[in-house]
């Protein structure tokens, strides 16, 4: 369980995350939605201890993320962020091997190799494994980053806008992979998503933020209503039922 207690962050006088209290479960897919600037990514950055908070506490399985040893946290919690570039020459396989660092500190065990091979296969990267990450397309690079997070093999996986750079087919493939991780491995996956229909179709739970606070928190059926979405985004929505899925239309 990840517990977030009265977490606050402001930049100057602008409060970005305003006293958020939230519990994230041990398993399942949780999506965080909201308009630009609602504080979703800031919240995720603080949970993953990349960003310090002004006030509040985050614990992962009872460990305070800012005070517990980094390695201990990194074996429980992994994060995929929007891409940061590196000048070094790194191949896809080497990038994925970095995911094993919290377990092996750079000395790969046979178990690590197996985890890396599996992550590469899971993300369909077998043929690209010796390519430099500079040579890849945005989507391929995104898959390589996802594979690194998989190799880290943590109970909690945080994905900050993982569908960026992905075309429709790859976005759907990634969401199916997320679903499989939750269903087959019992992992807890928390995603920041802009596409609310992916959130609707693939999540167990949707947390909606607006102006730094959580305004809706519930199953897709609870959140994917015209009233709730209009409130979250401050714009009109039409929600259709297609088979079992609720699909929001906001194009007109």
């Amino acid at each position, binding site marked *: 369980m990840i517990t977030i207690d009265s977490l606050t962050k402001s930049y100057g006088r602008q409060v970005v995350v305003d006293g958020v209290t939230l519990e994230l479960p041990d398993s399942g897919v949780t999506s965080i939605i909201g308009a630009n600037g609602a504080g979703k990514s800031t919240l995720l950055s603080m949970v993953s201890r990349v960003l310090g908070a002004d006030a509040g506490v985050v614990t992962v399985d009872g460990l305070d993320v800012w005070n517990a040893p980094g390695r201990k946290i990194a074996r429980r919690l992994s994060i995929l962020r929007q891409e940061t570039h590196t000048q070094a020459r790194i191949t896809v396989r080497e990038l994925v091997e970095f995911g094993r660092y919290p377990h092996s500190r750079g000395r790969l065990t*046979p178990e690590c*190799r197996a985890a890396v091979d599996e992550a590469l296969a899971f993300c369909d990267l*077998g043929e690209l494994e010796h*390519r430099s990450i500079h040579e890849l397309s945005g989507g391929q690079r995104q898959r390589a980053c996802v594979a690194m997070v998989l190799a880290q093999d943590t109970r909690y996986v945080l994905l900050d806008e993982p569908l960026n750079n992905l075309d429709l087919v790859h976005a759907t493939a990634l969401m199916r992979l997320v679903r499989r991780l939750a269903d087959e491995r019992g992992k807890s996956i928390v995603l920041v998503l802009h596409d609310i229909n992916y959130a609707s179709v693939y999540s167990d739970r949707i947390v909606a933020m607006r102006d730094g606070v959580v305004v809706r928190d519930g199953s897709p059926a609870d959140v994917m209503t015209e009233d709730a979405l209009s409130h979250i985004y401050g714009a009109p929505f039409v929600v259709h039922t297609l088979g079992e899925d609720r699909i929001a239309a906001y194009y007109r």
Partner: protein
Amino acid sequence: MDDAPVTPAGSPAPASPRPGGPADPTGQVAAATAQAPHRPRAGRTRLVLGILTLIALAASAAFLTYGVDGHWDFALPRRAATLGALAVVGAAIAVSTVVFHTITHNRILTPGIMGMDSLYVLAAASVVTATGNSASAVLGPVGAFAANTLLMTGLALVLYRWLIGDGSRGLYTLLLVGVIGGTLFGSLTSFLLRTMDPNQYDALMSDLFASFTAVDLRLLATAAALLALCGGAAWWLAPRLDVLTLGRERAIGLGVDYRRTVTLAMGIVALLVAASTALVGPLTFLGVVVANLAYRLTRTYRHRVNMVAAALVAVAALVTAQTVLQHVLRFNGTVGSLVALVGGTWFLWLLVKEARS
């Protein structure tokens, strides 16, 4: 720098297991995709390091023996001391630059360009001013070196650690602050020099701008010991530095204590800069050349490989230049200017390339 010995990137993995490669002990992993060319770069790394070692050794042999004409007992100890100084300085500058590149997330700036060797000179001038006499007369050369190094490392840890921050400052901010810092330290040094008694001034100058040809053996031994210590620390820190190449956020996500690692690395850099500056004075542009040449040759992010390769390149380059200048052309003490000429040109080229991309 050709592409010859590497397996073409992206070619389908051959299905046969690699000869001599370790067998997969778990046996579950499909051998076809996984184990085949497991480290296509391992062969290249060995080749590059082997060739660089040979070049460095050949240059050293040439330096020790060229044109001695039978005066072996006179020439050899002197030349060996110079060779020792060249090796210590080359290795210290190379390792400090590679580490510095990683913690600043750029491959252009070096501790020298950022004014760290000017900071050492300032520390030395301050120590002389404070003790009221040439520090080396009071403390001996090793004691003076220790005092300067302590002062310089303390200042560097405060100033540069703050400047690097969380690694998000851009190249041009760092460059600008570095140039201003270097100029400031230089101006403060010349201010101190102007207030100095001429005898102190003379002693300080001979301490600071000792050349490769007049090496104090005790100082050389101290600098070598410091190099061994810092080199060992850098080797030990290398896996974490490898993770740091992915950027701050990913490093934190992988459980690296970012602040602590950068501070440790900064301490190593400062001590190495002190060691090399104490021996021969500032060699501002050597680091940028040798580190970038090493990256091009090794083509890996691994710090252990890059530090060794850069050190070998530095030693080979310095020893070759010194051999040609001192023994063949009979010039004295011009290696520094040669390094500035070649290194400065390379640095400008790197800056232009960076600006275009």
